[in-house]
Structure formats: structure tokens, C-alpha cells
């Protein structure tokens, strides 16, 4: 009678331990297969295996939690700078307008991305938009070139648009981000690339959970003249009498360069903020997943442990009863 009851218990355990976790463990090459068959044909994972797995998942959880804190503190540092730099770029838009629809021959797309990974999907969205702009602006007379800032965009764009890349700049974040650095960078770009319109693609930081990919357009002075004459939004430019220098063209040239470096500065800061924010939320969901995994593994561990205790008991009792009777 007792034996039958114990046998029934054993069968119940067999159904609880589903075969799936066992195969998962077997397929991972790191864990040795320490399986043994119990008296009822049960297959147990050894508790050792489950414990190892739990340890590594716990480590992952700790690491991702730490990365989230680091990203949060870096975000706080950059956020104030970004908000201050936003004010500078708006007067330019008010005066010279931001015309994404300007039809020009030579487009240059400046893609801003991060150097390090683990930051969610922001780099892929930037690259997607850059590719979209490229497609939109390639035609019989028009051409589009890329200027890439950051490793991640470089990795993605080098694969299929290698011939269109003019300039690649990486490891921006190693030097502290201030205006002088970025203006030197902007200078480099302006010197080496001929352009009619520069389109800067970056992720604007709206809040800690929302990053909007945006395109800012900076037009070269000749195009600004052309658009101003044709009226429309830039028509107001002519109403301003331009002083301070020999010719109006010279002033507009300086203005365009200044505008470019200010917009670049703002774009780089916003992208850095978005990167830290995205990393925060990616690491957060990562540690939460690790927590869930840990819970499931703990349940499996306890079940395995109880099953092995039951098997031992069965062996002992059946051995003892065999001796008796």
C-alpha cells in the first residue's frame, strides 16, 4: 500500500518536471549533462546545474542594474547642458528657416550615433532615416553623401553604402563635450565636404522614455539666397538689412557656419542624452528579465531538490521493506 502511494507520488513529480528545461540545459555547451534516471524513469537535472545557472543569471542582473545606475548619472550630467544649448539654435531657425524640403543638388547627411552598444534601438532608427533620406534625394542630378559620427552607424552604413561615405569620425565621447570641440569638428566637415544642404540626423531627447529621431537642415548661403528671393518662409530674410562686413555674402557665409556648428552642438548633446536614456531603459528591462528568469529557476531548483529527496526516500524505504519481508 505504501509502495503504491509512493509510486503515485513519483509519477506526479514526473509530470511536474517538464522535459523542456532539461533540453535547454543540454543544448548549452557550457553545462555538463549530469542527468540520472530515477527508479520510475524520471529524468532529473542535477541541482548543481541549476545552481550554476542561477548564479550566472544573478550576476547578469547585478551588472545590468549597475549599468542602469551609471547611465542615469551620466544622463543627469548631460541633461542640463542640452537644455541650455537648445535656446541657441532656435533663433537661427527663426531667421533662416529649417527647410527640409529644399531641393538641392548636393546633399550631405550627417548621421550622429553612439560609440558603445547596449542602448536600445536608437542607432538603428538613425541609420534607417539616413538611408531613407539618401534614397529620397538620389536621382539623376542630385547626389547624397554621408558623414558619420560614431561607431554604430559606421558599422551599419559601411556595409552597403561604402562609396557614399565622405568622412567618419568616431570616439567623440572620449573628450568632454563642449562647444569648442564641436566647432572644430564642424570646421573639419565644412572644409572637406562640398554641400548645398546639410541634413543632421539625430535622436532628440524629449523625456527619459521618449527619443524622437529628427532631421535639422542647414543650407549653404547660396541656397539661402535663392530661397529668399523666391519668397516663402525665407522671404523675411531680405527685410533685414545686413551690416557689419564688406558684403552681404560674407556675413551670410559666416552665419551659415555658425549656424552649422550650433546645430551640431545641440544635435550631439541631444543624441548623447538619448543614448544614456535608452541605455537606462534597456538595462532596466534586462535586469527585470533576469529577475523573472531567476524566479523560474528557483522554482525548478526546489522541485529538483524535492524530487531527489523523494527518490532517496523511496530507495531507502523499499530497501528496508525488502529486508524485512
Amino acid at each position, binding site marked *: 500500500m505504501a509502495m503504491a502511494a509512493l509510486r503515485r507520488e513519483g509519477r506526479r513529480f514526473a509530470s511536474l518536471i517538464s522535459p523542456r528545461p532539461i533540453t535547454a540545459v543540454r543544448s548549452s555547451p557550457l553545462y555538463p549533462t549530469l542527468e540520472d534516471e530515477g527508479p520510475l524513469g524520471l529524468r532529473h537535472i542535477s541541482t548543481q546545474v541549476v545552481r550554476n545557472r542561477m548564479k550566472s543569471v544573478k550576476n547578469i542582473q547585478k551588472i545590468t542594474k549597475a549599468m542602469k545606475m551609471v547611465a542615469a548619472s551620466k544622463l543627469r550630467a548631460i541633461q542640463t547642458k542640452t537644455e541650455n544649448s537648445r535656446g541657441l539654435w532656435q533663433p537661427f531657425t*527663426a531667421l533662416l528657416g529649417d527647410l527640409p524640403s529644399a531641393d538641392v543638388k548636393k546633399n550631405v547627411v550627417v548621421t550622429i550615433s553612439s560609440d558603445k552598444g547596449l542602448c536600445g534601438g536608437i542607432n538603428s532608427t538613425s541609420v534607417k532615416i539616413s538611408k531613407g533620406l539618401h534614397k529620397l534625394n538620389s536621382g539623376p542630378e542630385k547626389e547624397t553623401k554621408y558623414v558619420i559620427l560614431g561607431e554604430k552607424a559606421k558599422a551599419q552604413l559601411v556595409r552597403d553604402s561604402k562609396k557614399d561615405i565622405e568622412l567618419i569620425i568616431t570616439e567623440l565621447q572620449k573628450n568632454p563635450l*563642449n*562647444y569648442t570641440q564641436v566647432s572644430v569638428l564642424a570646421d573639419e566637415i565644412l572644409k572637406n565636404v562640398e554641400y548645398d544642404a546639410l541634413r543632421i540626423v539625430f535622436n532628440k531627447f524629449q523625456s527619459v522614455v521618449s527619443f524622437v529621431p529628427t532631421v535639422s537642415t542647414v543650407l549653404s548661403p547660396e541656397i539661402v539666397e535663392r530661397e529668399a528671393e523666391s519668397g516663402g518662409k525665407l522671404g523675411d530674410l531680405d*527685410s*533685414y538689412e*545686413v*551690416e*557689419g562686413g564688406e558684403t552681404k555674402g560674407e556675413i551670410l557665409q559666416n552665419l551659415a557656419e555658425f549656424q552649422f556648428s550650433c546645430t551640431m552642438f545641440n544635435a550631439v548633446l541631444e543624441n548623447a542624452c538619448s543614448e544614456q536614456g535608452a541605455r537606462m531603459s534597456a538595462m532596466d528591462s534586462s535586469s527585470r528579465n533576469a529577475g523573472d528568469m531567476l524566479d523560474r529557476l528557483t522554482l525548478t531548483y526546489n522541485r529538483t531538490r524535492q524530487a531527489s529527496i523523494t527518490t532517496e526516500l523511496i530507495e531507502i524505504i523499499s530497501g528496508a521493506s525488502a529486508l524485512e519481508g
Partner: protein
Amino acid sequence: MTLNLSVLTPNRIVWDSEVKEIILSTNSGKISVLPNHAPIATAVDIGILRIRLNDQWLTIALIGGFARIGNNEITILINDTEKGSDIDPQEAQQALEIAEANLRKAEGKRQKIEAKLALRRARTRVEAINAIS
């Protein structure tokens, strides 16, 4: 009738409020702006910006940029600035002397130009302090 003045740099907003009158130095000389000025867009030279509000003059040292004036709204975009009250007089004086010495030592066109720029900056800062007092 007052003017709305905003002075912006890439790092922060230096000034954003109403004033009665400003004196700005551009490439073609100093201009004074009163309410209802004609709209102009101009380049700002390295010099001092004087602001008058309530019969009191304030000075800010500007290091190059652009200004747009129109509809009683003045927007000045500068690479770098310092408020007159923030500058230490002795330090500015020392900087001026160092800049003058550098200019005398400078050889070659590029060094001369850099030294001249540094000199103008130092002079502007000293002027900013003097103008207040």
C-alpha cells in the same frame, strides 16, 4: 516701449529680459539700438555690450557672434561671453599685459593674428570692468 533682449551662448542663456537701450559693437563700428529700430542682421565684433535698464548701465564682454534686431526683439548669439561683474580686475589686467607681451614676441602671420585676437579679448575684458566703475 522696451526692447526684449536675449543674449545666448552655446552653453547657457546669459540674458533674457527687457531693456531700454543697448550699445553694440559691430564690425563697422558701435551702434546704439533704441526701441523701434529698423530690422538688421549683423555680425558682432569682439567688444563690450552695454545695456541700459532703469538708467543704469551694465556691461557684458562679448567675444564674437551675430545679432538680429527687429520688431523690438534683439537676439544676440555669441560664441563666448563674460558679465562685467564676473571678471576679476587684477586677473584681467594681468591677462592684458601677457597678451601685449605675446603680441610683441609673435612672429609669422598666424601667430600675429592669434596674438592680436587675444589682445583684443583681454582689452575687452578690462574695458568691461572699467566701464562699470
